[in-house]
């Protein structure tokens, strides 16, 4: 078994910030003729090297716009980095935004199977997990109601339930431990602690230094797309809080 689950090598992610977004053919030709197809570069990530081993819990901190979410998307494979390379193994469950793959016209039950398929699981696997997921989400008879009639908290609960019940190898938590009511929050923290005890790898993005200290073993601080500090979670959480 390979111990290194995720390895980023000098990753850089560049966006074209051209204020003149070309959205139509007509615009494109006008700009092409006028020589105005300008591109303004913006590096959301630069020279990021990172390796995450099985069982590690990495905390990611940084101000808004420091590149935390971009980094998560690169790790999850949503973004292909402009430069550098990413290697990953195992099932990665991204909680970048809960319930991102949900269909509003589908019922909760149908969405469980759809979302499971998005995460790459087979139908059989999902059928075996369904009861557990429904129980954890605790939505009762709402499981057979179309999602458009759910409150946002209910949607988030369902998304969270699917992601944590499918036993991924890597769990990416992007400021999501604040979903639902107090009762659900306690339950989800308990579930994550349980998963940590089983040796799951977690990448945890948060502004809450207390949570980072409690849940993580290692931490990094991002600033303007670069890793400016790296070390044990306890030390870094202290430093960041100041």
């Amino acid at each position, binding site marked *: 078994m390979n111990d290194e689950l995720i390895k980023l090598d000098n990753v850089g992610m560049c966006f074209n910030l051209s204020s003149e977004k070309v*959205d139509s053919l007509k615009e494109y030709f006008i700009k092409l003729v006028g020589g105005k197809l300008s591109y303004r570069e913006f590096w959301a990530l630069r020279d990021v090297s990172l390796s995450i081993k099985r069982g590690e819990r990495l905390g990611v901190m940084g101000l808004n716009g420091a590149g935390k979410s971009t980094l998560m998307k690169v790790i999850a*494979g949503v973004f292909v980095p402009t430069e550098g390379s990413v290697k990953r193994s195992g099932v990665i469950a991204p909680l970048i935004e809960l319930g991102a793959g949900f269909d509003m016209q589908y019922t909760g039950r149908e969405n469980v*199977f759809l979302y499971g398929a998005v995460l790459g699981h087979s139908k059989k696997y999902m059928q075996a997990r369904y009861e557990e997921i429904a129980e954890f989400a605790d939505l009762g008879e709402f499981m057979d109601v179309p999602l458009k009639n759910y409150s946002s908290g209910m949607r988030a609960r369902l998304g969270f339930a699917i992601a944590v019940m499918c036993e991924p190898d890597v769990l990416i938590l992007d400021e999501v431990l604040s979903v639902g009511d107090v009762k659900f929050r306690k339950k989800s923290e308990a579930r994550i602690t349980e998963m940590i005890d089983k040796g799951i790898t977690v990448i945890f993005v948060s502004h809450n230094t207390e949570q980072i200290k409690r849940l993580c073993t290692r931490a990094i601080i991002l600033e303007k797309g670069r890793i400016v500090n790296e070390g044990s979670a306890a030390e870094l959480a202290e430093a960041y809080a100041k």
Partner: protein
Amino acid sequence: MQYTNLFCELVKKGIKLKYRRSYLGVLWSLIEPLLTMIVLTLVFGTLLDHHEASFPVYILAGRLIYGFFSQATTTALKSIRANEGLIKKVYVPKLLFPMSGICFNFILFLISLPVLFAVSLVLKCYPSVRALLIVLPLLTLFLLACGVGVTLSTMGVYFRDLEYLWNIALMLIMYTSAIFYYPDRILDSNVSWLLKFNPLFCVISSARSCIFGEAFDTWEVLYPLGFAVVFLLLGTAVFKRKENEFLLHI
């Protein structure tokens, strides 16, 4: 394959959601073409003086095939944008989106085919064994929709105008597909050769040959097949090259 299940789920979702909350549900796949056929027969049968007993079968075959083509390509064209929420958050092979859109439309099309058979029987235009050859034009039709659909789906990411342009193009395709007229009677021989360059016309024409027990026209079989394969190879290659950039543009 890890994503076979997702593909099936997406196909299932397309079919399920299409008729959700309508009382007759999937029956509409049978009723809708039947009703359209009646309207078109009444209008164009009178207007163009086509009074053959088999005219409704002729129309229905054309209308079903065109209907599938237009639905499938439009779905594919919009597929990337329609699944924006997913694409921006999770990694999935993006070719699944246009392909599943085309497949679910093809399944609905296959469901509606018994209507064609039933109408032929009612109008005493009994199909011969040759009718089984219809598999060939139907396969070509599927490949054609895939080729054109995938190509459109890439272009649709970059230029939103295409959704409107494609509607116009579809209208042109419809009129040059001879759905509700006999081209040899209406069109001058100076113009009618133009239709042979519309791959959809060729598919419709060879499908009709099967139904009416006539021989295939070689051009009408090979041209759309070649057209489909070229578009499929080209379209997939471009799609694969560009798919990583998609989410920066939607």
